[in-house]
Structures are given as C-alpha cells and as structure tokens.
C-alpha cells in the first residue's frame, strides 16, 4: 500500500477501473473486498474516490435532458418515406435506357421472326424449284432396278446394257 505523493494526480493506476465500478456501485464479491482493503491503506485512492463520488453526485442530480417533441417519430418516418420514393425514382431513371433498349430489341426480334415465318409458309415456297419437275427423266435406274425387270442371268444383263446404250456414252 503506497502513499500518493500528490493526491490530485490520480489513484493507483491498477485500481482506477475498480474504483470506477465502486463509484457506480457495480462491484461485488472478491473484487469489492480487494478494493475495500486497498482503500483502508491508500490515502490517495481514498481521496480520488471521494472526488469521483462527489463528481458523480453533481452529475446525477439533474437527470437526462428533455427528449424530442411528440412529432419526432412521425417526422422521421416522413423523411424515410420521402427518401424511399426518391430512391425508387432514381433507380427507375438509371434503368430506363436499358429497358428501352430491351424493348426495341424485342420488337426487332419479333419482326424478324414474323418475316421468317411468312417466308417459310408461302412466299418462299413459290421460289423453290419443283424437284419433281426438274428431275431428269432419263436418269438411269440401273442402280435401282425395277424388281420386275431384274435380269435373271448374264445375257439379260448384257441385253439391258445394250438397250440403254450404256457403255457407249
């Protein structure tokens, strides 16, 4: 237990936090006992404690300041709603060009699709060549022989070749 050379400077550094709890009546058990024992032998801490207790009395005597008026709550909520609306409007403004572009793209795609369907359905079909008409009539059906006319032997094969003029062309 040491004596402080200057009582006003401070209490023992290691006891300051405990003394604060002591002033705030927030100390119990073994810690309270150790502080009480220390105070019994330390005049510096006793004086510092008295000063702190007096300071606490001074400050606690008056209580808290007046709160906000009754309209505070509603004013806050009104500001919040206004800010929310502003934010929504800002968000809409930001995305507007993208939305507009998206609609244009969709319209273009729809138009292209309509043209494609029209083309496929009618107008385009007229331009396509009639395969049945343009199919060459003199194409040999040698490689897809009529089963009824299938040659039965080697002579018949030679005869068919001679009839169709194959071999010379």
């Amino acid at each position, binding site marked *: 237990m040491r004596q402080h050379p200057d009582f006003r400077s401070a*209490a023992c550094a290691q006891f300051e936090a405990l003394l604060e709890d002591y*002033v705030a009546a927030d100390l119990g058990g073994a810690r309270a006992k150790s502080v009480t024992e220390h105070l019994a032998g330390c005049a510096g801490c006793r004086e510092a404690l008295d*000063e702190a207790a007096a300071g606490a*009395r001074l400050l606690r005597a008056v209580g808290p300041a007046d709160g906000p008026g009754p309209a505070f709550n509603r*004013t806050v*909520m009104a500001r919040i709603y*206004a*800010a929310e609306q502003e934010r929504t409007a800002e968000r809409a403004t930001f995305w507007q060009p993208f939305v507009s572009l998206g609609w244009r793209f969709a319209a273009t795609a729809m138009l292209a699709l309509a043209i494609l369907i029209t083309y496929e359905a009618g107008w385009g079909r007229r331009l396509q060549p009639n395969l049945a008409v343009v199919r060459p009539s003199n194409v040999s059906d040698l490689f897809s022989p009529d089963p009824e006319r299938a040659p039965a032997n080697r002579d018949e094969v030679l005869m068919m070749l001679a009839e169709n003029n194959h071999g010379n062309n």
Partner: protein
Amino acid sequence: MSDVPKTMAASAQTLALPGNTGAKQEDWELVRLCQSGTAAAFEELVRRHQQRVFALVGGILRRSQDVEDVAQQVFLKAYLGIRRFDQRAAFSTWLYKIAVNECWDYLRKRKVRPLVYEADLSEEQVSQLDGIVSAHRPPESPSQRAEARQAIERILDTLPEQDRQLLLLKEMEGFSVQELAEMLDLNVNTVKVRLFRARGRIMQAFRRRVKPGGKTGARPATPTERKR
C-alpha cells in the same frame, strides 16, 4: 416534412406486425421485419430509441439547434442501411455508432466546435451546485433542475471533449459503460479509467469556479462557436 403519408399513419396506428402476439417484440425481431420490408417495424424502433439517440446527439453537439435534424438523419441512415445490418451487435449499439459518426461528420462539415459557454457561474448557481455536492441536496423543482443542468454543462464544457462526452452520456443520460465502449470504439476498462479521472477533473473545475468567499465572476452566458 412533417406531413405524414396517410398509408404510413395508418400503419403506425394498427401496427399489426407479423408474429406479434401482443408481447413486446425484441429489437432483433423488429430488425428482421424491417429487413423483410415492414416499415412499421422501423417506426417502432424509432419510438423506442429516439430518446437516447436524441440525448447522444445533443450531448455531442452541445444542444445546438441542429440536434433534431441530425437525430432524424441518424434514423434515416439506419433505415437505409438496415438490410446490411447482420445483427452481430445489438441494434442499439449499431444505431448509437451511426449517431456518433453522424455527429462527427456534422461537426467536420460545419468546421466548428460545438457551442461552448465561456461565462462563469452565477452565485446562485454556485450555491445550488455546492448544495448538491456537499449537502447531497438535489434540485427539487423542474426549473431548479434546468438551471443546475445548465450550470453543470458549463463546467463540463471546460473539460477535454472526450471527458465531457463520457461524463454527460454516462451520468446524465444514463448510457452504460459497455454502451459507451462500443459506440466510441474503446476498451471497457479504458472507459472506466477515463470516467474515473474525468470525475476528478470535473470536481477540480467546479472548485476553481467556487472561489473562497463565494465570489464568482457572474455574467450572462454567451455561447460562442469557435472555428477549428
């Protein structure tokens, strides 16, 4: 600004919050409702915390005229940021931190220090405060309390800014050491030590004003705003 939308007024009156069984809902439940888009839940949070936020802002800005505006701004910021609040800390802690930051932003933007009263105390005030300290005689009437409070705030103004804030918020506004530590980003023990020392300092400041014979330089208080 004071006009409240009808839909909001209705929601405030009939606060039919989901999951409300009549018992008082905890802050975290209200926060969760806010995060899912129930504005009425935030209104309840404002109602619960407005007194302390107001006290906190008033304590830091020294009761300037902008206290109400800054306090409203605190709630607005809290509302806009509540979806990002992960509830790892208590809602009140998070809210008070916003309030402290908002106050410092305000002071920085204005480039002024809070209002400082440079006048000495009147003899009446000195004797009143002496009665509180020596005779344990607290002021009785509201007017006496108001006068004592003004005098104490004047003494507080002579202390370093952090001492002043800690004492005012702890002893006059009722914040706990834990709350102060969290909102000012300080260790709990550091807050205790600073509070203890600040109490000694305020008594020193008080005694400096109470000259022997009770003579004091009594003149009307004039708040001044000092440029930083």
